[in-house]
């Protein structure tokens, strides 16, 4: 099997209250996941503007994952419901544009689910690595 030398680049948006704390818990428990995952903290998953995700793909990200509180547990009552609907729409549009559905994901990770965070990131990184480089939306002018 051919081993891809290039490391995938994954941007993870984590909400401050659940998923970022979940990622911290994964760290506390020393549950490893690939270093390809880079986390950006947002107050709520609903803060993630589709623009940020498009920007990440434009700049050469190979996968983008959004993590928020479980439905019903949003710190801001209803933010993650907006995320769920918005991202369903955005991801299907991205799929149409050639960014495979596997490269984008929304996952609910609570502050108590360090193990789930690590497992999710392992699985997502593996999936994205298997798909190879995102060439479809990458803007080569940004690579100067």
């Amino acid at each position, binding site marked *: 099997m051919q081993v891809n030398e290039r490391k995938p*680049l994954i*941007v993870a948006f984590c909400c401050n209250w659940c998923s*970022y*704390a979940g*990622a*911290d818990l*994964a*760290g*506390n428990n*020393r*549950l*490893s*996941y690939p*270093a390809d995952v*880079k*986390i*950006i*903290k*947002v*107050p*709520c998953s*609903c*803060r*993630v*503007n*589709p*623009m*940020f995700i498009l*920007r*990440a793909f434009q*700049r*050469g*990200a190979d996968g983008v994952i959004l993590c928020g509180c479980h439905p019903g*547990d949003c*710190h*801001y*009552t*209803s*933010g993650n419901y*907006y995320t769920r609907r*918005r991202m369903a729409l955005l991801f299907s549009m991205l799929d149409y544009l050639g960014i495979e559905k596997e490269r984008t994901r929304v996952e609910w990770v609570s502050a108590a689910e360090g193990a789930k965070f*690590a497992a999710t990131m392992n699985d997502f990184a593996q999936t994205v690595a298997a798909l190879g480089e995102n060439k479809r939306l990458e803007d080569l002018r940004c690579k100067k």
Partner: protein
Amino acid sequence: MQRIGVFVCWCGSNIAGTVDVQAVSEALKNEPGVVFSANYQYMCSQAGQNMIIEAVKEHNLTGIVVCSCSPRMHEATFRKTAAAAGLNPYMVEIANIREQCSWVHKDMLTGTEKAIILGKAAVAKVNLNTPLVAGETPVTKRALVIGGGIAGIQTALDIAEAGFPVDIVETKPTIGGKMAQLDKTFPTLDCAACILTPKMVDVAQNENIRIFSYSEVTEVKGFVGNFDVTVKKKARYVNEDICTGCGACVEKCPMKKVPNEFNLNMDNRSAIYIPFAQAVPKVATIDPNHCNMLKNGRCGVCSKVCAAGAIDYKQKDEYIQEKYGAIVVATGFNPISMDKFDEYAYNQSKDVITSLEFERLTNAAGPTAGKLLRPSDLKHPHTIVFVQCVGSRCAACAEKGKEYCSKICCMYTAKHAMLTRDKYPDTEVYVFYIDVRTPGKSFDEFYRRAVEEYGVHYIKGMVGKVFPEGDKLKVQASDLLNNKQLHIDADLVVLAAAIEPDKSARPLATMLTASMDTNDFFTEAHPKLRPVESPTAGVFLSGTCQGPKDIPETVSQASAAAAKVISLLVKDKLKGNPCVASSDELMCNGCSSCERVCPYGAITYEDKEFRMPDRTVAIRRVAKVNPAVCQGCGCCTVVCPSGAMDLRGFANRQIIAEVDAICK
């Protein structure tokens, strides 16, 4: 252009073990805006903080990046350091290179690479940071306690003791709650009324406490420090201020066949009633569902006998509006319904009762004046079977019971068994249990006394079926330790019903925007470190609304909640969160998309005059965010079609800069 200082923490070997901190601080030196970069063993230590303060002064820094542990750990620390150095605290960003880097990656090379990228993202963000000032809001120095059981009573007394006015809202005509119904309390066996009723009197006499009995909260608006609450005072058809509680009306009321809920419907009361002799406030209440005068206008006896003239058949529900700085939820619990537990024949036989009913049967003020008589024929029971965990720890039967342990049943059952054997030594007492759980001060000793001194038969096993036959109750059970089937002819069966949060809790949680778990218990802000605060600022939890508790635990949690309320109310002003949304009124087109998604109602609209390029003045409708109400989720920023709405501290430009830095 910012002048940024980067400080890389070793965290002993926690970070330095898998991240080359020297390489990180070298690499970040060349980032745009960075004028100073250093690393140190413990950045959060006094020496580390001093290093930051000195660097700020020496290099005229305008922004700080600390590459260290999670911001959840030390963001507040470094913000204070920045403030001490004369910087705006919000000019600090943390790159989390411990929890999200050194602790999860084993390899030095990948760890260092990732740490550099995370540092670059933080630098890119700080470059776009702006100084933020938290708004201040005044604090209304008054607390609301919802629920007047022992939890609410203790919380209210403690807050009042500190000098702040407190209102208690209680749905029943009297405060006292479940504890008022109990006979004796484990493990010391003091009588519940003897320790509770003096506290109830204290509440009534405390000039800082107002009691809204027979009332409920119908609307909550506002936020920490400034809640606007509407309380509905239900019509009790008796003027509370005039009624002396003499009881003449109760005695003369011809309608005497109303089930008495205070005695769990085991006897009757009149249509006008005072729940029990020590009720606070000691005021009569007319039950409109049973009063002949209110139903068809034929009676009026109570108004004739009332010397004070307190009866008012035309009384209406009254709505009271009040402002509060803090709200304490103390809505308590109820035993679950036994309707679904057919196997115990609760609905077939009057002699199958719940433990709370047993409590009333043995209470001197109860329906049998404290004599243990079985409800069906008022004869003394000679064989009593107690069944524990009825509906508790019932993962397999989640549709009728609860998965959790109700915590108090083991102890009160031991108490019931012991008291029965003590008063009536001729009675055989059997207790069927799954496990006996006695964690608590003097609890296990108490249970052992029941077994060893009082000879209660504790049998490990479940009761499979109870059915009435003649005047006996046939109990079929298994004895797991002896591997035997047992058949007991019992006179009385007592079910230790699981407890569940009061039904009023869920609608209340919605009003308060406080969160609940799947069992409708209120969730705490942190299960270990903030156990009496709800995640919603200004809302505190007291007693069993948060989880099953016995009386000592409830009281200690109630006092803890009071302490939290007091430390909130002593503040004259509250600092808000400055990371709130703000709308650029030049770009806003007043479409109200943002208003629709805001969960807090923080966005309003106002008409604003704009000078147009042709020197005319136009009036446009623009969005306006109330920074005291906005919690900073940022939902509005995404729906804004014109891009006018942005979130301070997490601005579009800042997040995009982070994305760019990571994807470089």
